[in-house]
C-alpha cells in the first residue's frame, strides 16, 4: 500500500518535471523560462523525494531533509541566474515592461559613456 502511495506521489512530481520541460520549450525568453524551470522543478523534486520516503519509511527523514535543502537553495540559484540574465537583457532580447530595475540604473547606464568622454 505504501509502495503504491509513494509511487503515485513520485509520479505527480514527475508530471511537474514534464510541465517544466514543456514550459522551457514554449516560453519566449530567459526570465519566463526561469519561472517554469524554478517553480516546477522545486515542487517536482520535493514530491519525488517525499514519494521515495513514503515507499521506504526508514529514508523519510533523510528525504525530508533533502527536500528542505532544495527549497532553500533552488530559489537562490534562480535568483543568481535571473540577475545575470538581466545584465545581458539587451542581447537576450527579453520583453520586459515595466522594467523597474533598468529604470533604477541611471548611474550604471551612463557611467561607461562618461568614461569614454573622459578618455
Amino acid at each position, binding site marked *: 500500500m505504501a509502495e503504491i502511495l509513494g509511487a503515485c506521489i513520485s509520479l505527480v512530481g514527475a508530471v511537474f518535471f514534464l510541465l517544466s520541460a514543456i*514550459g522551457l520549450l514554449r516560453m*519566449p525568453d530567459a526570465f519566463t523560462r526561469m519561472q*517554469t524551470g524554478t517553480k*516546477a522543478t522545486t*515542487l517536482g523534486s520535493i514530491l519525488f523525494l517525499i514519494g521515495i520516503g513514503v515507499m521506504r519509511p526508514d529514508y523519510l527523514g533523510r528525504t525530508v531533509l533533502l527536500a528542505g535543502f532544495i527549497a532553500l537553495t533552488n530559489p537562490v540559484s534562480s535568483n543568481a541566474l*535571473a540577475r545575470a540574465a538581466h545584465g545581458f537583457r539587451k542581447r537576450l532580447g527579453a520583453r520586459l515592461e*515595466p522594467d523597474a530595475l533598468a529604470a533604477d540604473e541611471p548611474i550604471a547606464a551612463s557611467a561607461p559613456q562618461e568614461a569614454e568622454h573622459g578618455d
Partner: protein
Amino acid sequence: MKALKARFLVFLALWGAWLVLTAPWSGEEAIAGAAAALLVAVLPFFPASPLCDLRLGPKPLAYSVAFGFVFLKALVLSNLDVAFRVLHPRLPIAPGIVKVKTALKTPLGRLLLANAITLTPGTITVETRGEDLYIHWIKVAAADPEGATEAIVSQFEKYLEVICG
C-alpha cells in the same frame, strides 16, 4: 550574548540534521553527533551566523510553523499557475520587473522573503538592494511599488516580521 545565541542555534541545526540523517537512533551515535556539532559550533568557523537573527520563543515558533504552511500553499499554487500558463494555448503572459519595498531589516529575513517570493505564483526575485526588491512578474498586475508590494510581499511579511524582523 548574541554570539552565544548564534552558536547555540548552529549547534541545534547541525545536531538536528545529524539526528535526521542517522534515522534509526542509537545513543552512541547521538552523543558522537552532539560532540561534533558542539565542536563546530564552539570553534570560530561561523563568526557571524545569520541564524542569530531568528527570534526564540513560543510566538515566533508558532509563526514559523504558520509560515511553513503558507509557503507550501504558495508553492503548490505557483505550480498550478505554471501548469495553467504552460498548457494554455495562447500563453497568457505579460512579463515585467516591478519594484517592491520590504519592512524587514535582517539579512536572514530578507533572504527568506526573497526565496518565498521566488516560489510564489508568477514571481522571481531578480535583485535586492537594501529595502528594495526587484521582482520579475510573469503577468504584471500592478506596476506601482505600493500595489505590487501589497500583492506580492505582504502575505509573507507579516509572518517573517515576527520570526526574524
